[in-house]
Each structure stands twice: as structure tokens, then as C-alpha cells.
């Protein structure tokens, strides 16, 4: 280790002030975590059957009644956890994509993943008969074979991602070219979806439209565990790379000058964020906007330092999806509104407010 600069001596300077400054960011992270936890407890309470927080706690500890056990363990807890995990995953994927593609509009759907997943679901439901219609008071449409739909959505969305990443690697695509390729791939899959739907029976189209709405209720413990594992690993990977992302924010050449292998970091980041997006979308359907707005909200509150921005984006995404889903379930019980719409209703005004405030400050 070289110590060339140590010849300049002096009293301790600004590092302590800086540590106060980063300390404030840690406090924000802590507050967000607490808020997520409190809202999670509230979300488990809320619904057609009312519990109080004490009952919820006792049930989670295995001391509740049989009704509360079924409702909380089998229905509400997986749903709430799915919201937290998928929200965190989508938002953090958006955060990394915005950095990697040097584009504030990038989101998990940028590479055409949502369109590809929707196409996959269409193929499964319409062509391979994985869906049917059934009339009950709660849900008008039931998908017979959700695993086949999820698998098909996942396979097609990863195919779209890999096509773009291969092109980027072989042809040395710039970030702009990757975004444009995503738009092209996305419209290709939309066109495919239209053709498939055009020749389908209307009941099947109803089933597939229902699928695209996005619904956290589709998650059972199995889905929750798979998502938690993958998104947890992805978060770990992103945190390892956080300094590379900071360097990328200062420009590609500066990052290279700092010893960052820009191409490898970008391909890795895009692959991992696409993977977690594909998993979330395949299990839950399309939940838009969180991946765009979650990281943008936190960029304005906590700044662009990925040491803090990555966990903060994850927490904001979790919070947004949790609040949206709880509202979707409780506004007009027992009807459950599509959560994807609620996220936009909540997220868009909040984001507009932050944008307006940011402009004023300058």
C-alpha cells in the first residue's frame, strides 16, 4: 500500500462532517424499514375479516384460533410478503437499470420484459389451454394451470432479455442502442400478443387480460420463497457492485479510469435485474411503475450514492406495493382492485410532487 499523500499533514478535517451526512442517510433507511414493518402488520390486519395486531402476532407465533390461522398464514401473510419482496425487487431492478443504461426513464419493462411476459401468458392460456373461465362471486376468471402460465411468461421474458444482451455483447451496443432494442423487442411481442388474441375465444382473452392486471393474491408460500431467494441474492449482487454503479454515474470513461470493467458490470446488472423482474412478473402479473418511480423518489430524497440508494429503492418499492395492495383490498371490500392500477394512482402524484419540489429548489 502506498502512502504518498501522507506527507501532507494536518488536523482532522471534513470526514467527521461527512460521516454525519452519511449518518442521516442511514437514519432514513432505518425509518423506511420501520415504516415498512408497521405497514406490513397493518396490511395483515386489514381485510374482510378484522383482526387486531395482538391476534395477528399471536397467530404468527402459533397461538391463534383456527380461522385466524388459515386466514393469516395461508392468505394474508404470503400476500403481504409477496408485496414486500416483489416491490423491493422491481424497484431495485429499476434502480440498477437506470444506472446501467444511463437513462432516468429505464425501468424493469425497458428491455421489453413486460411485453414478452404478457406474450408468454397469452401463449400458455390461449394456445396451450392453461386458462378457463369460471363464475364465482369473488373472481370472474380462474386460471387453471398457473404454473404453466408463469413458466411460459418467464421463458419468454428471459428470451427477450437474452436476445438483447447477446446483441449488446456481440455487437458492442451502447446503452442507447440497448434501450432502442428493448423498444423494438417490446413492440414485436405486443404484435405477437395481438395476433394470438385475435384468433382466440373471448373467454380466453378475458382470462389473459385478467392475468396481465397483476395480483399479489396469486402468490402462495412456494412463490414467496422462490422470489425471496432470488431477489435476496440479486440485492446482494447489486450491493457488491454498488461502487461500480457510483463510478458509472460519473461517466463511462471516468468509470474505466477508476478500474471498472464497464461492459461486464453493465451486462451483469442488466441480466440480474431482468431475471428478478421476470420472476416477479411471471408469478404476479404485470405491476408497472414501481420500478420507474421507486428509485426516482429515493434518488431525490437520499441522493445518487448507490451504497444507500440500492437499499432505499428496495424499501420504497416494498412500501409502495404494500400500500397499493392494501388499498386495493380495502377500498371497496370484498372487491380486490388490480394492484397495478393502484400503484400508479399512488406513485404518480407522489412523484410529480417530488419533481415539482426539486425544480423549485434550483
Amino acid at each position, binding site marked *: 500500500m*502506498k502512502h*504518498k*499523500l*501522507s506527507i*501532507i499533514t*494536518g488536523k*482532522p*478535517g*471534513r*470526514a467527521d*462532517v*461527512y*460521516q454525519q*451526512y452519511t449518518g442521516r442517510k442511514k437514519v432514513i433507511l432505518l425509518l423506511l424499514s420501520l415504516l415498512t414493518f408497521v405497514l406490513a402488520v397493518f396490511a395483515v390486519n386489514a381485510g374482510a375479516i378484522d383482526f387486531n395486531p395482538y391476534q395477528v402476532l399471536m397467530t404468527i407465533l402459533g397461538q391463534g384460533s383456527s380461522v385466524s390461522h388459515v386466514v393469516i398464514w395461508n392468505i394474508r401473510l404470503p400476500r403481504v410478503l409477496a408485496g414486500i419482496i416483489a416491490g423491493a425487487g422491481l424497484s431495485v431492478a429499476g434502480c440498477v437499470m437506470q444506472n446501467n443504461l444511463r437513462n432516468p426513464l429505464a425501468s424493469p419493462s425497458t428491455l421489453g420484459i413486460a411485453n414478452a411476459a404478457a406474450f408468454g401468458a397469452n401463449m400458455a392460456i390461449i394456445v396451450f389451454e392453461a386458462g378457463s373461465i369460471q363464475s364465482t362471486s369473488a373472481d370472474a376468471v380462474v386460471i387453471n394451470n398457473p404454473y404453466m402460465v408463469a413458466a411460459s411468461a418467464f421463458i419468454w421474458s428471459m428470451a427477450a432479455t437474452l436476445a438483447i444482451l447477446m446483441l449488446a455483447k456481440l455487437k458492442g451496443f451502447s446503452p442507447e442502442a440497448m434501450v432502442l432494442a428493448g423498444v423494438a423487442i417490446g413492440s414485436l411481442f405486443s404484435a405477437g400478443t395481438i395476433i394470438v388474441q385475435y384468433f382466440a375465444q373471448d373467454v380466453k382473452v378475458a382470462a389473459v387480460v385478467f392475468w396481465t392486471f397483476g395480483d399479489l393474491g396469486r402468490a402462495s408460500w412456494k412463490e414467496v420463497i422462490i422470489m425471496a431467494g432470488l431477489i435476496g441474492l440479486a440485492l446482494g449482487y447489486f450491493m457488491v457492485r454498488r*461502487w461500480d454503479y*457510483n*463510478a458509472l*454515474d*460519473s*461517466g463511462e*470513461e*471516468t468509470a*474505466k*479510469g*477508476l*478500474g*471498472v*470493467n464497464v461492459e461486464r458490470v453493465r451486462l451483469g446488472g442488466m441480466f440480474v435485474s431482468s431475471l428478478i423482474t421476470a420472476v416477479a412478473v411471471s408469478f404476479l402479473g404485470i405491476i408497472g411503475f414501481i420500478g420507474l418511480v421507486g428509485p426516482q423518489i429515493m*434518488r*431525490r430524497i437520499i*441522493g*445518487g*450514492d448507490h451504497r444507500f440508494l440500492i437499499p432505499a429503492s428496495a424499501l420504497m418499492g416494498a412500501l409502495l406495493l404494500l400500500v397499493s395492495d392494501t388499498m386495493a383490498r380495502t377500498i371497496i371490500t370484498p372487491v380486490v382492485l388490480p394492484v397495478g392500477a393502484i400503484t400508479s394512482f399512488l406513485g404518480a402524484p407522489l412523484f410529480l410532487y417530488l419533481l415539482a419540489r426539486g425544480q423549485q429548489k434550483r
Partner: protein
Amino acid sequence: MILSVQGLKFRYPSRPVFENIDFSVMKGDCLAVLGTNGAGKSTLLKCLNRILQPQSGVVCILEEEVFKLKLTELAQRVGYVAQKHESPRNTVFDAVLLGRKPYIKWDVTDRDLEVTNQVLKLLELEEYSLRYLDELSGGELQKVVIARALAQEPDLLLFDEPTSNLDLKNQLEVINLIKKVVKRQGIAAIVTMHDLNLALRFADKFLLLKNGTVFAAGGIEVITPENIERVYSLPVTIEKYRDIPVVIPL
């Protein structure tokens, strides 16, 4: 010797840029790379620290071949200040701390913070440390990116047109700062420049590029009216004002 370059050749798929580039840089040297637009000055800098991959040639930093080093090892030896910068929503301290990237394993150490502090002090940026980058002037921002390169504790600094967007006062301030740091730390700097008179105030060595190769290299003796005329295709005279040579186009 800090840097030696032998037989360096680079071409873009559509056009050759330069070949047979040989030169070396010693401790304490401030080398100005001169030449017309498109002569390959910036490309040459980028080939020295692997931002671009030259087709052939050997670049050694402190006797070690650049292309055999790991990227982080290279970044511990060579600091690069690009021509264009982006200013994310970060503070000056964050930006300078980023210069410690090649050393950071998982998190910043006390030493990283200490070096950042010292660099801020050296460049008189302490007062600015918690200011946001997008609220700085061009001159201040240029100092910050120089500070970031210094935080890498490099043996060699590369600057691509460090003065191109600055006013006269800031131009002189920045080149004097680079010179002071190079002499004081016993390192070396290579700077691409368009302003010949600024180069004459700053550099003690010169590398003149023309027609894709080295036209002349050496100390102040290579800056003759004849050489300048042939490199820039423009007749000039060189006068001395208070011992500083001044190039005047005719």
C-alpha cells in the same frame, strides 16, 4: 522512469489514428501532448490506461506492462481526468471519495476518508465538501475531478483537455495546480492541450503529433516556429515576454 511507450498503434475500424508512437515520462515531468484536432491526442491518452485497446505496442508503467495489470491495479497507478463529466446528485466529498474505488474492497476505510480529506485540503475544496456537484461552477467542478484522480494516489495523471471549458483565470489556476501537485508528489502528468501558450507555461516536455505519428518530442527546444508551423500548418513567431515564450500566429 514512470511511463514508457513503444511502437503504439491504434486504428478505428474506419480509419487509422496513429502508429509508431514512442516516448517516455520521468518523475516530475509535465508532458503536453500537442497537435491539431483529430491528430489523436485524446485517443493516445485513452490507450495509455486501457480505456481503448491499441492494436499493438507496449505501454509500461513503473516497468510493469499495463496490459498485464488488473484493472484496479492499473487504476491505483494511473489517474484519468476525462474531457466530459457527468454530475450525479452527489456531494463533492462523495465524488472525491469515489477516487478510492480501486482500493475499496467492501466498504470505505478510515484511510480512504483520510486521503479524501487531504486531497480536499490540498485543492482548497474543504469548504465545498458537502456541496452538490450540480451546484458547482465549471472551474470548481474541474478541481473536483482532479481531486478525484489524486485520491487514486496515482503515479501518473492523464488529463484530456483540462482547461477547455474554463475562463482565463481558472485555466491558469488549474494548470498551476496540476504542476504543483506533480512536483510536490513526485509523480508525472500527461496533458492534451490546444492552447500553445498555456502549454508553454505549464509543460517541461512536449509531444507533437502529426500525420498519425510523433513529429517531435523533447523539452522546450522542440517548440520552434518551424515545428509549430509544420504541425499546425500556420506560420508563427515565438517571442519571449518576461522569460515566458509566447507563440504568436503571423
